[in-house]
């Protein structure tokens, strides 16, 4: 039933694309095709194994008239980890052709102060650089774990109303889409910790459960109010939706002296109140985000009287509200750009006691009339400031970007990670890599 529902959605999307591509040009004066080609290969520094290969061809059809804009992003993408014989060990995407976005903008419709966007779209809220605690409408695209800030498009209706200095945006997403997870070798990073059990597990079963296909269960919505005040841009938002990353729901069934374990990967509901701020003072730009989460509790009470003489309650997500926040600033001089951010709670971290602290920075030098850029990226993760020595990890990633011709970008990157095992980055410490990426825009 679910497969049929998805097939219908895909068919509908392709139908829409076809209609748009073949009929819109007859009504509008010009269809423009833009896009880019990108290829990336990464090699593990420890064992010289090829670890990542991505080939990506993105086509962006666009038709603009006075009151409408059609835009699509059709992508052929093959990516994944490589085996020793260099074949794709496991592609992270089963269908290499993806529609990242396809939407129609109706400007000044149904009244002059409102713009509508209908179709599959990205809805990037928040003011931060790449990491946005208040951007919670699109599911995360974690297929490449080192490419922060990628999201999947959502089929949505977005209405933006402009009332003088106040802008109100409303979004409705009828169908839930789960996050795109990375290859198995990385899934441990995103899988929540399983509770330790004082029993022997007889049989373990893992099931992925998606919300029922009706509006009440599947839909998400959000509203945002923005205003320019005291020289700064403020916004307050509210989102009611589901976690796009799964949360385990664990049920134990006694079988003799052992238990059968059923782990259902579900997507509980969450309500989020968000606040954003962006401004500038002198030579500094600054921004801040605060997202206050109200999660739905994930709790199962299993009857284990046959083994321990009582019921057992396993809570994998508490309903205690928690906050994720970000503070950042940037500065630029002639050949230099710097931005620094402090983040409490990475996108995949869920629950009050699971949030880590991250200090992120990017220092970028521009040389040779912009034909060479040398960015240094760094991240320090701290799980417990009181036990810093035992709970920190870091990532350091210098890059050299060459722009030999207009529209051509060649990036050589190095990534070094080290840290304690209890940290998120520490779990990736065997993934020191060197990479080469080529991008051509047209």
């Amino acid at each position: 039933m679910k497969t049929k529902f998805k097939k219908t959605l895909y068919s509908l999307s392709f139908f829409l694309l076809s209609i748009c591509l073949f009929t819109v040009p007859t009504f509008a004066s010009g269809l423009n095709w833009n896009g880019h080609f990108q290829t990336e290969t990464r090699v593990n520094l420890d064992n010289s194994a090829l670890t990542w290969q991505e080939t990506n061809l993105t086509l962006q059809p666009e038709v603009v008239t006075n009151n409408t804009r059609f835009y699509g992003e059709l992508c052929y993408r093959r990516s994944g980890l490589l085996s020793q014989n260099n074949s794709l060990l496991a592609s992270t995407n089963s269908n290499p052709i993806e529609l990242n976005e396809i939407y129609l903008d109706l400007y000044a419709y149904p009244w002059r102060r409102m713009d509508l966007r209908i179709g599959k779209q990205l809805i990037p809220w928040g003011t931060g650089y790449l990491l946005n605690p208040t951007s919670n409408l699109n599911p995360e695209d974690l297929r490449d774990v080192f490419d922060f800030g990628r999201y999947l498009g959502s089929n949505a209706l977005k209405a933006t109303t402009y009332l003088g200095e106040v802008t109100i945006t409303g979004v409705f997403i009828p169908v839930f889409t789960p996050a795109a997870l990375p290859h198995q070798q990385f899934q441990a990073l995103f899988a929540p910790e399983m509770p330790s059990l004082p029993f022997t597990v007889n049989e373990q079963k893992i099931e992925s459960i998606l919300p029922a296909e009706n509006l009440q269960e599947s839909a998400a919505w959000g509203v945002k109010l923005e205003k320019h005040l005291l020289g700064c841009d403020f916004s307050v938002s509210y989102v009611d939706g589901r976690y796009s990353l799964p949360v385990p729901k664990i049920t134990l069934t006694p079988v003799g002296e052992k238990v059968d374990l059923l782990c259902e990967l579900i997507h509980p509901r969450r309500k989020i109140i968000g606040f954003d701020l962006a401004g500038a003072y002198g030579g500094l730009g600054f921004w801040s985000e605060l997202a206050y989460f109200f999660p739905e509790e994930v709790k199962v009470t299993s009857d284990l009287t046959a083994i321990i003489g009582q019921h057992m309650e396993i809570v994998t997500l508490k309903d205690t509200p928690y906050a994720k926040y970000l503070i950042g600033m940037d500065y630029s001089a002639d050949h230099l750009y710097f931005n620094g951010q402090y983040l409490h709670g990475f996108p995949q971290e869920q629950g009050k006691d699971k949030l880590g602290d991250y200090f992120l920075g990017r220092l970028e030098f521009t040389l040779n009339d912009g034909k060479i850029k040398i960015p240094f990226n760094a991240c320090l993760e701290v799980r417990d400031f009181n036990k810093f020595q035992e709970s920190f990890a870091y990532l350091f990633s210098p890059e050299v970007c060459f722009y030999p011709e207009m529209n051509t970008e060649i990036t050589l990157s190095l990534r070094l990670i080290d840290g304690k095992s209890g940290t998120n980055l520490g779990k990736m410490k065997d993934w020191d890599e060197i990479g080469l990426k080529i991008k051509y825009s047209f």
Partner: protein
Amino acid sequence: MMRKTCCILLLIICLTFPLCPVLKSQELTAKEILEKVNSLLNAPQDQKLTLKLVLIDKNGQEETRELIMMQKGKDLRMGKFLSPASQRGIGFLSLPNDVFYVYMPAFKKTQRIATRQKSGKFAGTDFSYQDLGTQQYDEKWSSRLVRAENEQYVLELQAAKGNDTGYSQLILWVSTENFYPLKIEFYDQHNKLCKVLTNHKIQKIAGYLVAQEMEMVDVIKNHKTKMFLEEVEFDTGLSDESFTERYLSR
């Protein structure tokens, strides 16, 4: 006798005629000249421009970019790149009180730009965000008329207190004939000459004076950007609403 007096008078007039511009310059103060420059540059109620930018590096290698720009009054300006593909859709919005936004299509976001970043290069050209913004030579600068030569006023503009353009001084060459700025030298915070802007092919279009060609030379990096005016429309009735984030992100 009468005839002799008339001849002498005529001779005096003929001899002093070439000095008229100097006398004229002595009549006008630097502030008055700048006011005329400002009213000339901001004369159209609004304007839509299509510009071709050619970036030329020290080895003579060229890169071409296309830009559309709209301006209303002296405070509102918006621009967007049409090409190259890697920069297509990058836009900027300049509003009063030093409010400046940039739209980055790759992130699908509008970003507020800090004041000092406005003096940084705009998308690889030799123009800064500030240079592309509206020109206000009367409010942020204290001015001095240095000299008048070759039918040009030469003005020295020192950054006034609170001026955050990133420049400490400007030297302006202004036509005595029509008050159009012909050349501007830009000096950095260390009072070192950093850029020179030259306006060429100044012509009247639809009743307004416009430079059809501008050249900005970065004298430190030996890099220049030529800006060619491809199309221009004046007084099309652009509304203030066209200069908002709503239109910038379209």
